[in-house]
């Protein structure tokens, strides 16, 4: 614990320290139990119970320490943590949170409800009580790939994970979707396969619909806060993650998600896509940055493919759900936009902001000037994280040749350019954050 307390966590974020405070409180409580057990006045039966409780608490504390793995500064760039925290705050997420990296291409938001069990302990140590009170529960942990696995622009997916933190605020209004096509498709599948619908089938359908809805909501939030950067990052993630069509009882298919996000980016006049194409010359297509995502086959082939990994019942529901998924997603995307407009309007990354950021920063970035701030006469505005990510993607996809960086002879010429771009964007994030912090000082 002493060593872990001495670790500098990325950006000096308080989240890991609060996590350690809870663990320290558990250990102090366990030590208190052991001291009580060693007291000659304690009955043997009580002493045994105290020792067992102390052992369980110690074991649980050890498990919780492992949850912190990857939260140190070696894996997550210092510079990115505070901007992420701004996203957390901007979306109205008040839970205590920490960030950690994993050595796999994985993004995940985990929730820990430790207060429910720890608040019921007998004789908690004062340090445990204080630690529990200092946390806004559930404690959240956002996992992202370690810096060895991704350039800065890929972190736009964090917007999706934070969407999971607010997904309960964005619901499917009753009666907003006509589920008749789903039922018809499911009935036909059951008839064709000689299966019998049961109550469990409908429970499974509810669960799958809820999971898919959460993914659509989170995609919508990612899109609203990060614009095209989210589209490119998600497509890139689908490519790295593999996983066939991406469809499962927990996730809608990758091809559909990509299509729905692009449709939203193409809406409006000018749309994000219009702006991006006008400035960079690149027309955003469904497979831009994700040419290898598997396209969905016909229902029968998909059903057979799903059955390899999932039950026939779940497979049938997933395939049938595709018949209403676009309707569901459309309603949820609209709801998400309404909620964010109401609660977090400053977080929305519209086409106008994209245009301003690309116009101001893209060409300078090719001249090794990071996107730090935008000057308009006397007015200076720090570049938001979303702006940095979008300028980064625009450079990565359309201007990489213009980035001046050379690697060793015979090496891949793009690698040093990508490294330089990552370095410039990270510097941009760091110094834009400094500008914001300075501007916020009274």
């Amino acid at each position, binding site marked *: 614990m002493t060593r872990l307390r001495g670790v500098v966590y990325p950006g000096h974020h308080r989240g890991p320290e609060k996590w350690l405070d809870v663990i320290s409180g558990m250990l102090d409580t366990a030590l208190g139990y052991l001291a009580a057990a060693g007291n000659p006045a304690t009955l043997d039966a009580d002493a045994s119970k105290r020792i067992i409780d102390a052992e369980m608490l110690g074991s649980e504390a050890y498990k919780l320490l492992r949850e912190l793995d990857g939260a140190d500064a070696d894996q997550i760039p210092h510079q990115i943590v505070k901007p992420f925290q701004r996203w957390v705050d901007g979306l109205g997420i008040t839970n205590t949170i920490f960030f950690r990296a994993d050595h796999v291409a994985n993004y995940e938001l985990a929730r820990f409800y430790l207060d429910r069990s720890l608040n019921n302990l007998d004789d908690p140590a004062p340090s445990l009580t204080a630690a529990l009170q200092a946390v806004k529960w559930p404690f959240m942990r956002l996992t992202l790939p370690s810096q060895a696995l991704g350039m800065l622009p890929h972190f736009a997916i964090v917007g999706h994970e934070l969407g999971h933190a607010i997904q309960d605020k964005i619901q499917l209004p009753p009666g907003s979707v006509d589920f008749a096509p789903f039922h018809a498709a499911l009935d036909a599948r059951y008839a064709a396969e000689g299966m019998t619908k049961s109550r469990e089938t409908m429970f499974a359908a509810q669960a799958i619909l809820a999971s898919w809805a959460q993914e659509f909501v989170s995609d919508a939030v990612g899109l609203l806060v990060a614009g095209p950067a989210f589209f490119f990052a998600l497509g890139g993630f689908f490519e790295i993650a593999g996983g066939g069509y991406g469809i499962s009882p927990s996730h809608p298919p990758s091809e559909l998600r990509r299509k729905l996000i692009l449709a939203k980016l193409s809406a409006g006049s000018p749309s994000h896509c219009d702006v991006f194409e006008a400035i960079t010359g690149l027309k955003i297509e469904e497979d831009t940055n994700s040419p290898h995502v598997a396209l969905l086959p016909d229902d029968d082939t998909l059903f057979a493919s799903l059955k390899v990994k999932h039950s026939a019942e779940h497979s049938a529901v997933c395939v049938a759900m595709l018949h209403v998924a676009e309707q569901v997603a459309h309603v949820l995307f609209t709801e998400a936009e309404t909620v964010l407009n109401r609660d977090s309007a400053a977080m929305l990354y519209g086409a106008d902001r994209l245009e301003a950021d690309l116009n101001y920063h893209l060409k300078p970035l090719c001249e090794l000037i990071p996107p730090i*701030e935008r000057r308009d006469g006397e007015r200076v505005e720090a570049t938001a994280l979303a702006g940095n990510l979008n300028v980064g993607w625009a450079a990565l996809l359309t201007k990489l040749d213009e980035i001046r960086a050379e690697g060793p002879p015979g090496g891949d010429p793009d690698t040093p350019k990508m490294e330089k771009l990552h370095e410039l964007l990270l510097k941009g994030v760091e110094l834009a954050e400094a500008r914001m912090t300075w501007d916020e000082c009274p």
Partner: protein
Amino acid sequence: MTALSSKAIIDRLAEKDPVKRLVVSPLLEPTAQIKPGQAAVDVRLGFDFCLATPSRHGSIDEFSEEKTSLTTLSALYRREFIPLGRKITIHPHQFLLAQTLEYLRLPPGLVTVLCRSPISLCHLGFERERADAAQI
């Protein structure tokens, strides 16, 4: 070679063409950092610090054919990230390198700026003449 006046520096900072632009960013207090008649930009301490640590390594030969490896450098220095508003303590006889807060990029046609202090390379054990001040 002439030094740029403060007005000329301000003009170069506002240059529309990014190729020709002088970049010192972010300038948090432009009027305090570029004073009339100063012909210089005052910069601030940034977030990244390198603290020299005792080691068995001798001097580094700048002209050696063997490049100084990152391992050697990491043995010579411990890096510290200090966020804006936090403090770092410099103990007696301790030496540290610090980045500027500002990102600096000089366009073609301008030459470098160095503050009047022994440069960092001297502290790595270089045996060469100390570099003194330079001007734009």
